[in-house]
């Protein structure tokens, strides 16, 4: 047996959560040792565990990362008020970890009160990252600015902030010089530019600065000059009347930014100002032009100079020709994201097709991650992509119109996606679209053994589809499904699989109230949340499909912060013999391990 100090030293090299979790299972002494020296805790579902349990196990934590709402909340599928409140966590960790340094939250409801507690409770607080969070205002930000003397990172990624004023920035005291990263791109209100400039000027370690729209292009050169050490820069609105002096100053400032590797922002672009960034193009590893409504020639000119680009986020204005240029110029590309410029308009006048993606898959040998919105796709294109890029780890394809078949052969896209999962053996994330039958799920269940997250919409024919996925995908942890004809059978047949996953989301499918209740009753390790906003929901018979169901494993039992449209099924002991009367009782016979429908209304015991 190693002495404790040696073990502790060895564990200090274990940084990934999975490694640490595994080490803690080796034996009791390793468990004890590990829990005392774990500094970073990651909780993928804030309702999977109680804060007190976490604190009891890990007393010396410096960094907490929490996720709240399910992913589909990003697309307005989770009604407001569902939950994801961080307040109970903040209260507990403020009490337990006075030396906490980092908090990272994703899809959680954060109030001003939470931010005030954070601001006042942690003497050495350094990093605050809020991604897709809501519920707070600029007052909360002011509290953080005013009180967190050692703050390094304030990163607001696509949060919904109530903007009371831009004054919050001015609350950083003059003595505050430790800022390394500031991302305020999602804020709409104007901050005092002189306060911003002074903040930048007194932050010698500032590496990331992402401005919001209200900072005018004329002011960018001032900020760039103040911070030549910047690595990651996000512009404000990149438009103005064309003025030579403004342009020259800006181009000059960019050319002096020798450390710049990442550019973003570019809201409201005036194309004539784009060449100002040419001098930094060859340095860039990351470029986000996805808010720039500029056409292909301008975009192509830029990407053709980005020889070192690893990450490109762009609108479909880039067109197939632009992506062809990417495939020839950006040989180091790892990640490609193409968003639609106008997803709701009927007429398609942008020339971005599946061809663009095929060219990039051909030319960019390091491409691993794709998020691609387009209007048409073919099986042969998907097969080509899979053969070109077997090293893909993340493939998310969104064909904008639901259930669109292969536009050449008019067949479903089963074979194409099948090829993706068969050839791309390291695939961990997949999102599918277009016309898909149960066959594609057969392929996925057979081949996608490393798949961690799967998103399905408007696909499949029957429960068999869902069964293939749940029974075949050994590594699956997150499954989200909408508008598919998947129902009770596959869900109940794979009930124990659900405990090996973080969560399952199903909306507009065919899962009934009865099945949800049964699942909740039989699986104490799962919360089965039915999210249903219909007025008459309490009087609906049990065979009626629910609007939405969110199932997740938990060791903390049911939660008690639910709104009226969320019901946690099957946790009430009386449920089994409810007065509603089961018209068709599905009896689960634990003794025989079989599943058969019976017609009876009551049963004494199982």
């Amino acid at each position, binding site marked *: 047996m190693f002495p404790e100090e040696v073990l502790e030293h060895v564990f200090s090299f274990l940084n990934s959560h999975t490694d640490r979790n595994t080490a803690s299972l080796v034996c009791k002494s390793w468990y004890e040792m590990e829990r005392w020296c774990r500094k970073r805790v990651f909780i993928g579902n804030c309702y999977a565990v109680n804060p007190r349990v976490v604190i009891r196990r890990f007393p010396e934590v410096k960094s907490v990362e929490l996720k709240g709402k399910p992913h589909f909340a990003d697309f307005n599928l989770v009604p407001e008020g569902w939950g994801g409140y961080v307040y109970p966590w903040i209260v507990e960790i403020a009490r337990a970890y006075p030396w906490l340094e980092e908090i990272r939250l994703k899809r959680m409801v954060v109030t001003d009160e939470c931010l005030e507690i954070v601001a006042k409770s942690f003497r050495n607080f350094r990093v605050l990252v809020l991604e897709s969070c809501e519920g707070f205002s600029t007052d909360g930000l002011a509290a953080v600015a005013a009180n967190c003397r050692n703050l390094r990172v304030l990163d607001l990624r696509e949060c919904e902030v109530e903007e009371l004023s831009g004054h919050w920035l001015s609350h950083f005291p003059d003595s505050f010089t430790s800022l390394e990263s500031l991302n305020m791109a999602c804020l709409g209100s104007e901050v005092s530019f002189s306060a911003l400039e002074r903040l930048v000027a007194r932050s010698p370690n500032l590496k990331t600065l992402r401005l919001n729209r209200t900072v005018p292009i004329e002011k960018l050169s001032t900020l760039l000059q103040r911070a030549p050490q910047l690595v990651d820069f996000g512009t404000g609105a990149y438009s103005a009347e064309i003025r030579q002096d403004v342009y020259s100053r800006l181009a000059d400032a960019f050319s002096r930014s020798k450390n710049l590797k990442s550019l973003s922002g570019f809201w409201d672009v005036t194309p004539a100002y784009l060449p100002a960034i040419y001098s930094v193009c060859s340095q860039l590893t990351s470029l986000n032009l996805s808010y720039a409504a500029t056409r292909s020639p301008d975009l192509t000119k830029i990407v053709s100079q980005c020889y070192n680009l690893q990450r490109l986020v762009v609108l479909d204005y880039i067109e197939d020709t632009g992506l062809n240029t990417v495939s020839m110029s950006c040989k180091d590309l790892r990640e490609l994201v193409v*968003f639609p410029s106008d997803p709701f308009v009927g*007429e398609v006048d942008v020339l971005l097709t599946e061809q663009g993606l095929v060219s990039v898959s051909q030319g960019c040998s390091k491409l691993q991650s794709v998020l691609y919105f387009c209007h048409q796709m073919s099986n042969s294109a998907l097969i080509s992509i899979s053969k070109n890029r077997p090293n893909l780890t993340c493939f998310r394809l*969104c064909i904008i119109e639901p259930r669109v078949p292969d536009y050449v052969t008019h067949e479903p896209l089963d074979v194409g996606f099948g090829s993706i999962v068969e050839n791309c053996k390291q695939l961990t994330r997949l999102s599918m679209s277009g016309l898909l039958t149960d066959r594609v799920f057969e392929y996925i269940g057979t081949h996608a053994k490393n798949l961690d997250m799967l998103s399905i919409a408007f696909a499949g024919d029957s429960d068999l589809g869902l*069964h293939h996925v749940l029974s075949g995908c050994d590594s699956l942890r997150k499954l989200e499904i909408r508008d598919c004809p998947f129902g009770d059978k596959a869900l109940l047949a794979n*009930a*124990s699989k659900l405990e090996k996953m973080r969560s399952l989301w199903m909306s507009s499918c065919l899962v009934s109230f009865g099945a949800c209740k049964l699942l909740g009753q039989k699986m104490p390790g799962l919360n089965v949340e039915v999210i249903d906003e219909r007025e008459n929901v309490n009087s609906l018979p049990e065979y009626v499909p629910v609007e939405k169901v969110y199932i997740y494993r938990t060791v903390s039992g049911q939660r008690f912060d639910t709104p009226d449209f969320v019901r946690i099924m099957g946790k009430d002991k009386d449920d089994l013999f409810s007065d509603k009367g089961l018209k068709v009782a599905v009896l689960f016979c634990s003794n025989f391990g079989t*599943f058969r429908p019976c017609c009876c209304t009551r049963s004494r015991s199982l």
Partner: protein
Amino acid sequence: MDPIPKTHNQDLNLKATELRLGLPGSESPERTTIGGAKNPNLVSGAKRGFSDTINFVKNGAFLAENKNNTSGKDTAVSSSPKVPVAASKAQVVGWPPIRSFRKNSMAAKNTKNEDDPNAEIGSCVYVKVSMDGAPYLRKVDLKIYSSYQDLSLALEKMFSSFTLGQYGTHGSSENPLMNLLNGSEYVLTYEDKDGDLMLVGDVPWDMFTGTCKRMRIMKSSDAIGLAPRVADKCKSGN
């Protein structure tokens, strides 16, 4: 790795049911589509012919879910390179999967195009609706309503649970929310682009959807002095 509890129910034996697991290419049981119609074309491993596809498309595959109005939809599935799109585009919630932040940014961009009246078509506008005293707020997409009456019906449904004790059933008035609010302690207000607090219903509907940033069902006592600045707003063509 989390320990898996041992006291556990067996997996349901799927073979005991009608569902079978076939290897690719083997015979599979007939399956039904969502609408209940059996489609033998889906079953066999053979390639589906063009005409089969048309039938399949017409029978159900192309029609979006119940929430859509897709009347008069003419899906162009042809061998030409033209992309099949729908003639009418009633939106499916949350599809395509684009975050609100991006959608709102695009919507904001579109509203700037005054000379392009079609620029706003299809974009959606999510606004928050809060009610004084309610435990949480709601979000609505103003684009899916066509009139104040539509909107008030929807809001009334959403918030009725908060006022149920007081107002019970609603009358047959044209404007249920107004009914709920009439003589009550609440008024429906909104904050517009300029940050001004306005009464809902005072400006024409189209102007409202273009300028409303968020709505608030507030106590009448707080709304005293909320003078409608309708005339000014209409004149300046906001």
